[in-house]
């Protein structure tokens, strides 16, 4: 299969869905500019112009509400935030209205608004430009929330979102954008709620989302050299969450590490641990480990930032602790995102 970068995959999904369905339109601050949301909306703007790729005022709350109204009246808006952190300003309408619309009006139709938020981890983006709010949206029933890790899923989940009738939040990590992978040419949907074994293994299960899937894969590679076999589960969507793939894997390996780009408490790492504690606790041969952000806001200073965002090394350490090994002489890994260069 031909390879695309993650951002190209998003762009392609957008273009194909716009071609297939004239009701799809893109809304966001600067979606029409020369950078085109890190490339993801550029081709769509060039092809469809300002009528369907709409630069909006800096009004996140109203724009989310406008998207809901447009969706209630026949359109399929794709709302784009260059930083997922800005979505907090739109949280009210997304959680109090979009998520509840179908239910509270008696199941007479939904509001298919798709919202993409880009997580800006790294390069000193700091406390308010690095957050990954997927758990916040996924706590509230009524939304689908996905965290694609691969170019193929970035495309396939967006296609599913733009064809469905449920409001969807897609959280994309900026550091995934340059990564390449095989992507089907056709707009093949990837379903929500179906996880993926990113790598098979027997000794430890690492459940991860988004960027952390790659960190987990790199950790697995290194551990393989040491004779430790790691299974990496990519949840792909966090609501619905594929409980089965998680539990089946843990039931086999008996050990669980959860790796997330957000904080541990009340986050994906908590939920996955809870799913295991609810369903297959007796299979656990060691305590669950959470690899997540330390309990502070994101710092800017380089060494602090490097220490703040967990990478493959943190996954390696957690796995080693679970199998009762110690770190010994493993070389340290740099983060997947280390190649990014400024100026910002």
């Amino acid at each position, binding site marked *: 299969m031909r390879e695309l970068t993650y951002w190209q995959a998003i762009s392609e999904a957008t273009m194909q869905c716009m071609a297939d369905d004239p009701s799809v339109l893109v809304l966001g601050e600067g979606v029409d500019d020369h950078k085109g949301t890190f490339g993801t909306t550029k081709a769509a703007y060039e092809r469809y112009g300002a009528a369907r790729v709409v630069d909006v005022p800096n*009004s996140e709350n109203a724009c989310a509400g*406008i998207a809901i109204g447009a969706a209630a009246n026949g359109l399929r808006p794709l709302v784009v935030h260059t930083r997922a952190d800005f979505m907090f300003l739109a949280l009210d309408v997304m959680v109090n*209205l979009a998520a509840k619309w179908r239910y509270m009006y*008696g199941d007479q139709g939904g509001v298919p608004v798709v919202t993409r938020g880009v997580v800006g981890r790294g390069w000193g983006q700091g406390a308010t430009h690095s957050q990954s709010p997927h758990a916040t949206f996924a706590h509230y029933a009524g939304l689908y929330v996905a965290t694609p890790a691969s170019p193929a899923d970035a495309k396939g989940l967006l296609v599913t979102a733009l064809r469905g009738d449920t409001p969807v939040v897609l959280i994309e990590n900026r550091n995934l954008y340059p990564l390449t992978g095989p992507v089907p040419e056709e707009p093949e949907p990837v379903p929500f709620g179906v996880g993926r074994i990113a790598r098979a293994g027997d000794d430890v299960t690492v459940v991860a989302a988004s960027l952390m899937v790659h960190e987990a894969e790199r950790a697995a590679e290194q551990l393989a050299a040491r004779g430790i076999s790691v299974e990496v589960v990519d949840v792909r969507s966090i609501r619905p969450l594929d409980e089965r793939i998680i539990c089946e894997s843990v039931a086999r390996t008996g050990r669980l590490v959860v790796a997330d780009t957000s904080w541990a408490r009340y986050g994906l790492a908590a939920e996955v641990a809870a799913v295991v504690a609810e369903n297959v606790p007796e299979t656990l041969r060691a305590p669950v480990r959470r690899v997540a952000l330390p309990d502070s806001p994101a710092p800017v200073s380089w060494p602090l930032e490097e220490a703040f965002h967990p990478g493959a090394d943190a996954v390696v350490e957690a796995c080693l602790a679970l199998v009762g090994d110690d770190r010994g002489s493993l070389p340290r890994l740099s983060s997947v995102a280390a190649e990014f260069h400024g100026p910002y």
Partner: protein
Amino acid sequence: MTTTPVGVAPAPDTVDPAGPDAALIRDMVRIRCVEEELCDRYRDDQEMRTPTHFSIGQEATAVGVCAATGPDDLVFTGHRSHAPYLAKGGDLRAMVAELYGREAGCARGRGGSIHLIDRAAGFAGSAAILGEMIPVGVGAGWSAALRGRSSVALTFFGDGATEEGVFHESINFAQVHRVPVVFVCENNLYSISSPLRQRQPAGSTITDRVAAYGLWARSVDGNDVYAVRAAARAAVARCREGAGPAFLELHTYRWREHVGPGWDHDHGYRAKEEIDDWIARCPIRRATDAIRDAEPRVDDWVRQWEQRYREEARAAVRFARAAAWPSVANLLDGAYETVGR
């Protein structure tokens, strides 16, 4: 028996003999009768378990505005939803059943008083978080324009909701994109028990603040149903012509307490005299007075309408109380789309 409000094209056989001006009175009387009946039942029976915001005294805003709309136009509102719902032609029995939490409710009992909807009638939804339906109205109108339809969206909200930032964001967006949306502000001087002067600066008005965005904005006596209709017609016409959004500030007054059926002159935040003053400016009485010379039979009509609609309201209550409850087995219905439904 169903009466077709003027907001929707009436089937010939249901038109009253009274003409369009009297029809506005008829629709206000109907809403008043329904709401008074609901107030009594709400207070006495404790069977409607849903916070309920009555529009008694404010009927001219809903009726005057909806009279300017056509069947393809969409109305959204905030929490004070019954009057616009009925004025737009929303099904009465479905509304009452909704308040009673029944499966036959317009939102199948899931939404309650604050989440009315009747898509067939063009009543596109009400919501209880202040300001939320303002951008939604903009989005709906924008969608119509983008899809080449001539329909207009209208969104009702109170004076208090204009303090939410989303109101301004919505006005700004609508004006930049020339969205066919009519912003309908029912200024009843209070937000729960906070008087307007405690929440917004003296010396300027909501209309002033909207006009500063360049919108066509009018401040209208909201208890004068004919004035409201005239202003709304102008607003809707502008939208339909593609001249951009319009704003109406309709000055009116709520007679009952903010939420619930009671009177509240003893709650300390407004004087009995103030309430009585506004009751003296009852929109139904004023509309009747205004056309009595031309239509001397109007008082008889009003009496007949009162009888007819009280009975219709009671029948709706009977219908609702007899209707089935939702089944608990269907508790999760509609939380997500059901494939293959």
